[in-house]
């Protein structure tokens, strides 16, 4: 049994307009995504802004209500559970947010922030001393000095705040952490520190990660498996080790091509994508990528490709790839 199994997940946001607030259209953020995460696995979700990767993460964590589809977490279908029924599952499924400035309550000290999940989920039942000890241990795990315990978020740098965010997520000993762009707001040297910290957590506590990022380099480094999303569809999924040589969807290739290479001697012929991502309100017919695809044919405008297996662990949604 997989730790997390998502089947046909759909999330639409209604657009309301007019006097009666009628629903006039939908933003099709996530359009039928299947996903499976095993215990201790690091799965990366990559794509450009607006491709639905954050919505997918938040819907799995039930911060959004799914429009359709199933979310099976540790054998329980949590897709339609009420908020109170969700509580025991939240302990096992935590989330780290992108913005280390906005995701911590500025009026709470680190102790208050980190003690809250411990009390709420009855992980520490003793008094204040016991709580303080548990929080100190958490701070130590994420590489923060014990002296940080009574400080407020504004006293820390971005990287330190993100460490507190990570500490809060792992306070309840979760099995799965959804990390939504956890390093995007950080400088590269700090980014490397946080990535190493997350790797330690995987090694020591066996936490599984759904790692959401727009940065293919970071996802490739951290994750075992990569899922590439475009306009709410998964267009390719493959092991990280094969990204460099076996990426086959034209969009994945374009993403790889667009990354600047830090070697000035390597003058490459790049295949650049034209134009912008289409609006998720009016999805293109057929393949969602056909409007920008360099190899699109007539067929791509009519038939929507589904994910099919190319090799073990490698699936692609494209008519034209063998």
């Amino acid at each position: 049994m997989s730790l997390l199994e998502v089947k046909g997940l759909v999330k639409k946001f209604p657009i309301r307009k007019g006097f009666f607030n009628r629903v006039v259209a939908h933003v099709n953020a996530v359009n039928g995504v299947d996903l499976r995460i095993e215990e201790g696995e690091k799965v990366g979700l990559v794509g450009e802004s607006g491709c639905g990767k954050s919505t997918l993460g938040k819907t799995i964590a039930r911060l959004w209500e799914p429009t359709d589809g199933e979310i099976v977490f540790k054998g329980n279908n949590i897709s339609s559970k009420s908020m109170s029924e969700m509580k025991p599952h939240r302990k096992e499924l935590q989330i780290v947010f992108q913005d280390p400035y906005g995701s911590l309550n500025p009026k709470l000290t680190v102790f208050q922030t980190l003690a809250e999940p411990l009390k709420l989920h009855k992980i520490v039942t003793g008094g204040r001393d016991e709580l303080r000890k548990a929080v100190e241990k958490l701070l130590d795990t994420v590489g923060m000095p014990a002296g940080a315990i009574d400080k407020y978020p504004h006293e820390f740098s971005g990287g330190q705040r993100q460490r507190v965010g990570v500490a809060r997520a792992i306070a309840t000993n979760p099995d799965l952490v959804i990390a939504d762009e956890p390093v995007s707001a950080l400088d590269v040297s700090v980014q490397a520190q946080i990535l190493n910290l997350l790797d330690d957590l995987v090694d020591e506590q066996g936490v599984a990660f759904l790692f959401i990022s727009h940065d293919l380099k970071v996802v490739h480094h951290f994750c075992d498996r990569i899922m590439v999303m475009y306009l709410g569809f998964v267009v390719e999924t493959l092991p990280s080790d094969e990204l460099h040589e076996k990426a086959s969807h034209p969009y994945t290739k374009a993403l790889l091509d667009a990354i600047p290479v830090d070697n000035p001697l390597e003058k490459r012929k790049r295949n650049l994508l034209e134009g912008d991502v289409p609006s998720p309100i009016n999805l293109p017919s057929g393949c969602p990528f056909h409007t920008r695809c360099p190899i699109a044919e007539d067929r791509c405008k009519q038939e929507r490709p589904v994910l099919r297996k190319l090799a073990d662990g490698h699936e692609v949604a494209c008519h034209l790839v063998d």
Partner: protein
Amino acid sequence: MSLLQVKDLVTEFKTDQGVVRALRGISFDIKAGETVGLVGESGCGKSVSARSIMRLIPNPPGKISEGEIIFDGKDVLKMSEKEMRAIRGNKISMIFQDPMTSLNPVLRIDYQLEEVLALHQPNLSKAERRQVALDMMKKVKIPSPEQRLREYPHQLSGGMRQRVMIAIALACRPTLLLADEPTTALDVTVQAQILNLMAELREDIGTAILLITHDLGVVAEVCDRVMVMYLGEVVESGPVEQIFANPQHPYTISLMKSIPKITASRKSGERLDTIRGVVPSLHNVPKGCSFRERCDFAKEVCDTDHPELKETTNGTCYRCFFPQGQS
């Protein structure tokens, strides 16, 4: 002769905790038509450098207290505000990081593009301005430019807004373009489009570019020379080929190593090289070498003496007592 020469520039800001020196004596020059990259992490003074050249440092609290900025043979710091206005947007223009907020949301694109022409080229008629605006929109490859000119910024995507910003910046064919993180807010595929566009326009107009970024990949791809900044100082500079092939300063080396790379030989759970600690506060800059506390190669002398920029035989400079590259 260099187009722009910056000499020992010091920019200070008054804060509640005392005066901080955001730029601690930086010197560099840019030749006509050249692209120079300025890299470093947040707070190292990259943006303050560009804003100092444009004299856009708000005073108070900021002040350019020492140094010279020679542009086209004249010291920018000695110019009157009126002379400065004739240069801004005309001979030197600037592109900012955030294409969402750097355009005025309540004015149409055509107004914003033609405004710069009306200011700096008053002899153009209205029809001529319109024509130049349209040409610029075509040059930055905005689809259906006639229609887009009549639209408002919110109707354009992020990539298109940045194209409009570039069109405005280049409308008067400036000799120097200061680009402050022009692609940071954009997706990689759009970033690649914008970088290509900037390279094409450089060929076309011959503008020199000071490209500020934190992304070493971007530098490697488009720049001729690069300067690495740390805590308000240039710690290493030189031609990109040399700096990337053989960096000398431990900070440059660590910075390059801390970026994950996409290679076939990936190992799961492999650690990235990090730089320990955090950037020191500008309020108490360490005595001696400013990178000392985070450096693996520091010795006693680094505590007490401030390293000067040293030149190497292949045209690079570094500020370190114990350079780690091959000599």
